[in-house]
């Protein structure tokens, strides 16, 4: 699927993650800012990548600013941001749930 517009979900508050999804041309790119990047960066990126692949996104730029979010939060924020970017927030995301 193709990203139509840039969209964002999440906040910069503690235990949350802010995810911005925008059009890409060169595969799935994830730019992560996190205090725990060294220990958990790979896990966070893997979680976001999994959501992107559930939505069958081939080209997308994702900016993630993490403030220590749990896995379920990361997944929820990624799903919402992607759905907003695809313009189909109204429908349940069966492919990703």
């Amino acid at each position, binding site marked *: 699927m193709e990203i139509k517009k840039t969209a*964002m979900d999440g*906040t910069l508050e503690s235990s949350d993650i802010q995810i*911005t999804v*925008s059009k890409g041309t060169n595969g799935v790119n994830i730019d992560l800012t996190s205090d725990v990047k060294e220990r958990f960066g790979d896990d966070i990126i893997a979680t976001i990548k999994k959501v992107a692949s559930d939505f069958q996104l081939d080209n997308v730029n994702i900016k993630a600013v993490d403030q220590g979010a749990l896995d379920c939060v990361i997944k929820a924020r990624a799903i919402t941001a992607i759905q907003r970017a695809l313009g189909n927030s109204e429908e349940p995301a069966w492919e990703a749930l």
Partner: protein
Amino acid sequence: MDAQIRDINLANPDEFEEWKNFLESLGIANFSGAEVDPLDGTIGLFEGDKLVGTGSYSENILKYIGVCHKDTSNGVYFNKVVSSLLTRLGQLGVFHVFVFTKPQYSKSFQHVGFSEIVQSENAAFLETGNYNIKDYLAEIPHLAGDDISAIVMNANPFTLGHRYLVEAAAKRSKHVYVFVVSTDKSLFNSKERLELVKEGTKDLENVEVVSGGDYLVSYATFPSYFLKSDKSKVVYQTTIDALVFKEWIAKNLNIKTRFLGTEPESKTTDVYNEVLRDVLPPEVKVEVIPRKENGSGDIISARTVRLAIKNDNISSIRNIVPTSTYDFIENHLGELQDRIKKGMKIDGN
């Protein structure tokens, strides 16, 4: 107590006073109309009725961010304010966001996902979002060779004076980039200005006309170019602008010389040129090309053109603009005059 975000209406004198007092207690001092009027929105973080944090935005630039974290652990309120501002801008469809701040706060912004573009002695310039300076540079055609120069112009509109400057640069170097300021605060909008520069230099084969984007003399890097400001402010902003040019644009595009035109009638441009001469060398050489005069000893100025449009006297400018610019003005005269009537300033830049 949990702090809540609420809108602050700066047009309300009581709210303005509270906001101003709060920021003054944090060492922020400038509340002149030129600074405050362009703000598009202001939010406050409140503990009950007490203001403990605030932030504003003007287009895609964050301003007047201040938080008091006496009663919380570091960063909680700051993150909350920045987060709310980014969400707010996101709802408006703005995702590429800049901030100017003191160098000691650069780290706090980096912690919430901003990247520092440049830092000077007394300011840092950062951006975040779905686009960055590397994306901008990737969009510009990269020219081969070592003898590459650049000119930055607003060209409001493109005159034979601009043409003279471009020709001089084109003679002296193998390739010339002409960056056209893209901020829409001028009589001719950015698309029109870019198009007229392209048209007016079409015959010069070694000239590449590109948009300056958000990074060259833009409303983000250099607001004083578009707003009246005192000299220290202009120096502070132009230093950032010059550093962006030197450390990113010139470095990436292999630009070795920056050509400047003189501007006897604009103090801001004078200060800007002074700062460029100070910041750019030795990596980028600065060369000044004196102004072209018309036959009678007057300099050619785009301001003359704008005045002629206002005074409905465009035949007087036929010999100071290229045909392409003249034709455009002739065909869009009513529209341009309408913009002036609606309040577009024509005596600034």
